[in-house]
């Protein structure tokens, strides 16, 4: 059962205090988008064995959504950061690259 530190309130929350929200950094496609774009937005999800970026909500705490980077195989958590961003912070990417030299990046 995971523990993740909420970047909003600083509480190290355990999984039962959190609500999962699936893959992070999806780009919304609305009216005017192609079928392929909409399909990607709606349905195409990564399922890596390794580094993954996810949405979590501190549902039983401060109520804020945040993003987390973790390894789906070892469950190592590389870091959490606020949801108000379109891409992971540079220092987090650097940290992951250092720990997982073969990592192909977050996109």
């Amino acid at each position, binding site marked *: 059962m995971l523990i993740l530190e909420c970047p909003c*309130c600083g*509480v190290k929350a355990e999984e039962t*205090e959190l609500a999962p929200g699936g893959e992070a950094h999806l780009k919304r496609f609305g009216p005017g988008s192609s079928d392929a774009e909409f399909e990607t937005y709606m349905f195409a999800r990564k399922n890596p064995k390794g580094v993954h970026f996810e949405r979590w909500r501190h*549902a*039983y*705490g401060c109520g*804020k959504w945040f993003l987390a980077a973790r390894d789906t195989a070892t469950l190592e958590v590389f870091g959490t950061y606020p949801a108000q961003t379109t891409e992971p912070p540079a220092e987090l990417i650097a940290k992951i690259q250092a720990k997982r030299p073969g990592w192909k990046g977050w996109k």
Partner: protein
Amino acid sequence: MSDPVSALQGAVAQGFARVEEIGPLGMITLRAKPGTEGLEAAIKAATGCDLPGARKITHQGAKSCGWMSNDEFLLVLPYADVAKALGAIAAALEGAHHLAVDVSDARAVFRVTGPEADQVLRKLTPADLDKVEADEIRRSRFAQVAAAFWPADGGYTLVCFRSVAGYVMGLLTHAAQSGSEI
């Protein structure tokens, strides 16, 4: 108009700790980001309390102001003072983006007291009580529902939603039963 009644009308249970539903208690949800002009004045005017830092709760007499999130505060005050406090907040935050609303009736409030009051909470919440500081408000899970609590004179004050007051009273009563001291 009737007198306001709390969800459990002051139910009490005595085990190795004392559990008591208190209220009605005035509560205001105030949403505004720290740095909003007038925020500190609004909290001061409504409760006399200082603006709390992250996860802290400030007190002034019977009034308190708890940090609920990075844009939300819980103001605790006598039930009868709510309307006046809302007026003061509106005046102080005039023109600034905020939301202030009476949530007194949407909540149930409990006091858990006694030298071993902490044990009652330890049975119900995954929050680490040893790390909750004296001036901290902690939001977490109590068994299957959300609740917030803070340390206060010889025990803890605990706030949950009104509709689950009976459930939470049941939890606290079960956890406080004599003979089940940890």
